[in-house]
């Protein structure tokens, strides 16, 4: 839902990215959009390869961040291809051939094309299960089912509210609109009910689905932590601890770095 609102607004074009590391490649933006950013999480310059994974999106979008976080957790090489949201590129061809719903991100892995960020992260967790961090609860079907429960909770219970709060508190200001305090109050009232459940859950489990970090914990609460809403997280000890853990992860730091560039 947040994705739909965000993408219908004008966004500033991605700024040129200055890279100091020799293994990171960048070519300046041109008519045919060859500003592809190649990233590798390995620091050695000898590991430049042609990335078979391409992500079409922008680091500002939470849905894109979800995918980037999963790729970094898995230490996978990929190319980030910016989508010119300001020009409405996501609502036209050729992007619509990647995602007919006109939303970022889309991902290509060889000749496979995917969209819907949570489907993409599940694919990454499955296809590359042997690489990097395990992003699903280890074990048999019964245990994996718990990852799915909390993934659905994130998608159905948490994100719809959190996205609207981020829209009110962060994105509206960027587009010259004013925050609606009544809406924020109403939304925060709903969010605290979810966070109370998270608090109870995290008293029994290290992370949401099990004792390992999984897809259900990917920290796209990022925007809220830069607003007054962060108090709702910080006032709940287990939730507060969990937020610190998930945002301290090196993979997450890399995603945040991309936004700063």
């Amino acid at each position, binding site marked *: *839902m947040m994705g739909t609102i965000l993408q219908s607004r004008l966004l500033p074009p991605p700024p040129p990215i200055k890279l100091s590391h020799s293994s990171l490649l960048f070519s300046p933006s041109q008519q045919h959009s060859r500003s592809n950013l190649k990233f590798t999480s390995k620091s050695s310059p000898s590991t430049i390869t042609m990335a078979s994974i391409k992500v079409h999106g922008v680091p500002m979008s939470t849905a894109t961040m979800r995918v980037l976080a999963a790729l970094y957790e898995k230490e996978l090489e990929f190319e980030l291809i910016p989508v010119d949201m300001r020009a409405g590129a996501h609502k036209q061809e050729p992007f619509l051939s990647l995602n*007919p*719903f006109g939303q970022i991100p889309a991902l290509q892995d060889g000749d*496979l094309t*995917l*969209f*819907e960020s*949570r*489907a*993409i992260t*599940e*694919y990454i967790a*499955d*296809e590359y299960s042997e690489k990097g961090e395990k992003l699903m609860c280890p074990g048999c*079907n*019964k245990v*994996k*089912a*718990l990852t*799915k*429960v909390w*993934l*659905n*909770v994130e*998608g*159905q*219970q948490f994100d719809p509210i959190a996205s609207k709060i981020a829209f009110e508190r962060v994105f509206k200001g960027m587009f010259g609109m004013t925050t609606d305090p009544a809406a924020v109050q109403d939304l925060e009232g709903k969010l605290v009910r*979810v966070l109370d*459940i998270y608090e*109870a*859950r995290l008293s029994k489990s290290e992370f949401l689905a099990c004792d390992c970090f999984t897809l259900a914990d990917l920290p796209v609460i990022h925007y809220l932590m830069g607003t007054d809403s962060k108090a709702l997280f910080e006032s709940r000890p287990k939730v507060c601890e969990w937020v610190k853990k998930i945002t301290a992860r090196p993979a997450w730091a890399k995603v945040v770095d991309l936004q700063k560039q």
Partner: protein
Amino acid sequence: MASIKVFGHATTTSTRRVLLTLHEKNLDYELVNVELKDGEHKKEPFLSRNPFGQVPAFEDGDLKLFESRAITQYIAHRYEDQGTNLLPADSKNIAHYATMSIGMEVEAHQFDPAASKLAWEQLFKHIYGLTTDQAVVAEEEAKLAKVLDVYEARLKEFKYLAGETFTLTDLHHIPVIQYLLGTPTKKLFTERPRVNEWVAEITKRPASQKILQ
């Protein structure tokens, strides 16, 4: 005694999503009624099964789950060799699975929000003596129409949403579609030929008929 128990209400789309899956798999189960009108789902002991206070909750032996789409996926995997296969034909093919996942996400985030609001406005509100808000109906139908246009294009290439076979992606849509077919919103399906055919196919399945009883 069935080791599978569903705690829910047989009229809700989310409970039906799980019951459909169990029927497709020919699995025995016990449906434990949760009396929604008494607010049973918002109190203990139900809250221990789903702290979000929503039906259904599910049990298979000592495994306890909630969120209907997590439950259906568990059933499809755990009982893969029984009854209808609800996963892609080559279930170990991760790319095919990912394609089905996309469809499940689209249903959950693009289709269902609009479809559920339309069912609420035009059907369930009457049960509570409330009146349909036609402005909301118009707005939500416009959103649903856009999604169905994408479906129409997709179904011109494939028999079902995730490919040539019926999968969880299609199944997840059935309960709310069954309700919408009893409302004027039905026209959004009938005026799109491939969507119309797909709706007819998925709603005539024996399991789909069983959950209406």
